[in-house]
């Protein structure tokens, strides 16, 4: 009996001190068929038949204890080994990650896309038209006949006496009105490039982009215009933006309004961006002039509608804090890289 206890202590001590290699030797030393524990069975012969099963049981228990101790020790040694390996694999997590190279959409494309998505969601189509236009669609149909002072307002690039680079996306609206006169109602937005004889500086560009909108139907009101624009501004700038109308003048709308939105920087409290007023001028709008409808062959007694137009550069500049319009046409990728979203 004493032998068993001694052997157990001896084995456990040896196991606890073993390393990976000696542990395998210990397993052979104690647990193999010719091992020390099996060797105890030789003592069986000297035992009485009552004691034999008891002894057998004890030897078996000892075998299990030693085997478990070896397994446990092995698991422990394996873990130590693994931990050592993992430690040796330590990396500098502060090194740069692998970023697949990505380009960006131009800020003007971004704003145009955002406008398109807002209005498509409201059931609008996106109309386009030629940039080399006729004076008919650019001016005459927009209630701006030959000699009208508004033709002076927009110093235009003429190509010949009747052709020009369109100076306003209103030209697209006039084409849509003509095409869809027999297919009312109309709900479109008209984004595109326009051109004016302005010298380029921080706030002027001879080429820029507009996005106009046009809705023609029955019983369309200024209140509908306000609701529509409020929705647009809230999508583009901030959920709680408000708008206000100021009377204005455009030849193709009557009445006409300048639209201000609450300053998106200060929320209307007043700051340098809004020159302390809390308001920022964002677009022009109005109810489509009856002359414009009639010229397109639409009964102005039955149908009314609204139109609005915003500068895409202006929206981009306000939205992204761009201070020089020329930055939008330099295409410096250090600038473009800023528009990841």
């Amino acid at each position, binding site marked *: 009996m004493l032998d068993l206890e001694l052997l157990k202590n001896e084995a456990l001590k040896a196991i606890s001190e073993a390393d990976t290699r000696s542990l395998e030797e210990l397993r052979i030393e104690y647990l193999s068929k010719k091992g020390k524990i099996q060797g105890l069975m030789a003592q069986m012969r000297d035992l009485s038949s009552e004691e034999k099963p008891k002894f057998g049981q004890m030897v078996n228990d000892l075998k299990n204890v030693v085997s478990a101790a070896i397994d446990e020790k092995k698991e422990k040694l394996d873990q130590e080994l693994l931990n050592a390996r993992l430690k040796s694999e330590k990396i500098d997590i502060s090194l740069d990650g692998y970023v697949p190279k990505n380009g960006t959409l*131009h800020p003007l494309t971004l704003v145009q896309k955002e406008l398109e998505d807002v209005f498509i969601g409201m059931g609008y189509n996106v109309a386009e038209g030629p940039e080399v236009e006729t004076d008919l669609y650019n001016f005459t149909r927009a209630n701006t006949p*030959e000699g009208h002072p508004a033709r002076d307002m927009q110093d235009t690039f003429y190509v010949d006496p009747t052709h020009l680079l369109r100076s306003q996306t209103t030209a697209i609206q006039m084409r849509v009105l003509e095409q869809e006169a027999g297919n009312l109602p109309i*709900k479109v937005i008209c984004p595109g490039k326009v051109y004016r004889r302005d010298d380029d500086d921080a706030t002027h560009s001879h080429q820029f982009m507009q996005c106009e909108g046009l809705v023609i139907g029955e019983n369309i*009101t*200024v*209140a509908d215009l306000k609701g529509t624009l409020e929705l647009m501004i809230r999508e583009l700038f901030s959920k709680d933006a408000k708008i206000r109308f100021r009377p204005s003048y455009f*030849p193709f709308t009557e009445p006409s309004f300048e639209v201000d939105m609450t300053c998106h920087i200060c929320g209307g409290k007043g700051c340098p961006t809004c020159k302390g007023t809390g308001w920022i001028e964002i677009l022009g709008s109005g109810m489509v002039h009856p002359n414009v409808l009639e010229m397109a062959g639409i009964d102005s007694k039955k149908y009314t509608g609204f139109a609005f137009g915003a500068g895409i550069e202006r929206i981009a500049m306000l939205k992204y804090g761009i201070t020089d319009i020329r930055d939008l046409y330099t295409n410096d990728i250090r600038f473009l890289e800023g528009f990841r979203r």
Partner: protein
Amino acid sequence: MKLSLKWLSSFMDISDLSVEQIVDQMVKCGFEVEEIIRLSQGSNLIVGKVIECQNHPDSDHLHVTKVDIGSQVLDIVCGAPNCREGLKVIVAQVGAKLPDGEIKASTIRGAESNGMLCSLKELGVDENLLPADSCSHNGIEELDDRFEIGDTDILEKLGYDDTILDVSVYANRPDCLSMFAMAKEMGAILNRKVALPEYEGKSEIGKKSAFKLTSLSENCPHFLAKVVHHVTIKESPEWMKQHLRANGVKCINNLVDISNYVMLETGQPLHFYDLRSNPAMEITVRDDYSGPYVALDGIEYQIEKGDLMITSEGKPIGIAGIMGGDNTKILDDTSSLIIEAALFDHAQIRRTANRLGLQTEAAARFSKGLEPLSQNKAVDRAVQLLIELADAEDFEETVEYGKPDYEPYQIKETLNHLNALIGKAYTMEEATDVLRRLDFRYTNDQEAFYVEIPSYRSTDLRIPEDIDEEIVRLTDFDDLVSTLPLMPQTVGRLSSMQKMRRVIRETLTNHGMFDTVNYTLVSDRYIKEAVLPKGDAVELVSPLSDARRYVRTSLMNSLLEALSYNLAHYNENVSLFEISKVYARDIEEERLGIIMQGNLIDNKIKHISVSSDFYVMKGILLQILSKLGFEMGRITLMENDLDTIHFHPYQSAVLCMDNEILCIFGKLHPNYLRAFKLNDVCYAEMILSVLEQAKPAKVKAPVLSRYPSVSRDISLLMNEDIKAADLLSEIRKAGGRLVKKAEVFDVYQGEHIEDGYKSVSLNIVYEDKEKTLKTEEVNEIHERVLNDLLSHFNAVQR
């Protein structure tokens, strides 16, 4: 429009309103105020008398003075050269706030100074608004006998207590460029009663006139002339000078001042001629003169046919509506004059003024349009003022050519229509209150109101909606509710081209390329050096510069410019693209331009780099086409024999879609790149309009094979000119339907390969859709394919 609040207050009482309140109301009613100009600024000012003035011992220009301001005597150091004993001066006392800061007690080089003696300029008065003889140009202001020691109303007495609003006036309101109409407008905005001078009809006096007046141009439909004898030239009264100065008009003498003043009041430019310069007593307006002409400013202008000229005895005496002549102007000894008030076509005046670069007040007013009765009104007012201020009494009757184009008319509007358009519920009282404020005559019943439109609003107010705008404009509008249009449902969608652009942009940005927007207008050289140009370029009649004279016919040069800019600004490995329309006469095309330089992928950490070469470009182009749904079978690749001036003749190609030219791409020619200081650039220009016409294939789910495929490789040595595409099509021909896939995976030239030859490694995958291929079957086909390649291309197996 420069609106003097002091002048305005002579027509209505606005004493209870602050400048800010007035501006706020104007903005709400549709008048933007660009600038608020205070003619002068200064608090704590008092009249003082210099009772002692000595030179400062430590300075060569300072004076040490004692100034009596009534309540006390102040020690003040003054640097003005005109400072002397006995002067009455403006004293800014300690604590006075001037435009440049606050006055503090100080010691100047040892001398005590308790205030400042002021020039009007130091009180913020603009140099141009000072009378020519004012001491303030070079020193302190010297006050005259009107001022007593201790007076504090100095700026008021001098007439500099005014505030000018720089009002921007919309093109539909040229009437607001005249003070009388603006006063009416302000009356409506501020809800004040307006009292304008009674002057209409004042010119209906005078003896018979022999003056002859004709117009030979339809661009001068109405002309009034009136001869006035025995006028006295003198200085204008102070109030008139103040109003003129406030508007930035120089005061000359009463006659010239009256003509300018009446223009400011009525909006009608007037011209006064010295009667002596017109012995023929005749004026003819014509537009057939051409040649040089010296105007009032002494400059010679080149007049062309079409320009309106005032002539007498066939000789020009003034550029109509723009500037009078030097030889007919009012002189210091003028005693008799001719008043001219005419209507000239606004477009013609604008054309002439623009061409001559002569933007006078008169030209600006004619260009913007006059109210139809303004000629008569201006002559009436001029006669009234000449009597009052120039002792005129000997008039000839007014001579008239043509007549004003104006018939009184009414506009009818109903409450229903008004409210249906606006989306509000105006009452009849609210609507007619606006008409009352505008001083319009009207009648109304329960549903409708009938408005008589005064002549000065006749260019603007023509239809009921115009009246609606007046009502909206002059009532509080911030309470308008927000609604959305109630109408049949519509489905919003992008067109196929709009969708295509989005797919392309997404694909290219995912490859690390940047979306750009470039200028449409380019130089002559960029037109000559265009890629795939179509038709004649569109040229501007009056470009801003030669660099922006033409509408571009291709995108390449814009992208080269953008690339070159980027490389010059510390960027490397730049890939850009642009989607834009290009134009030629009667042609519009949508195009895509892609430019790549350096490496498309260049990741140092991962040691990956992919150089932007022909194959990268080709792969990306085909990827775009496949993303857009165009099967490769419809696309053909051809050698580039279209353009080897811009493109590398041996590393470029042309893509066709359904046999139409779609795209040219490849490396750019080093000779062409030299001008942009670039090298090794790949470029592609694709005509997206071609794709717009072509219908993309429907998406179909692939059918997966149930049987395994077998892959075999072959390496062949062959002539270097043999094309991969020919090898692959030969494989398909020989292998038939069992060839599932065939591709070239390596091409090698160099060591161990004879010059003029190359080693090509091919991978072929065999598959039968109906059964598992046995090894013997594969061997047999593969053998056939191999032998075919060897014999057909004269190749050797390696």
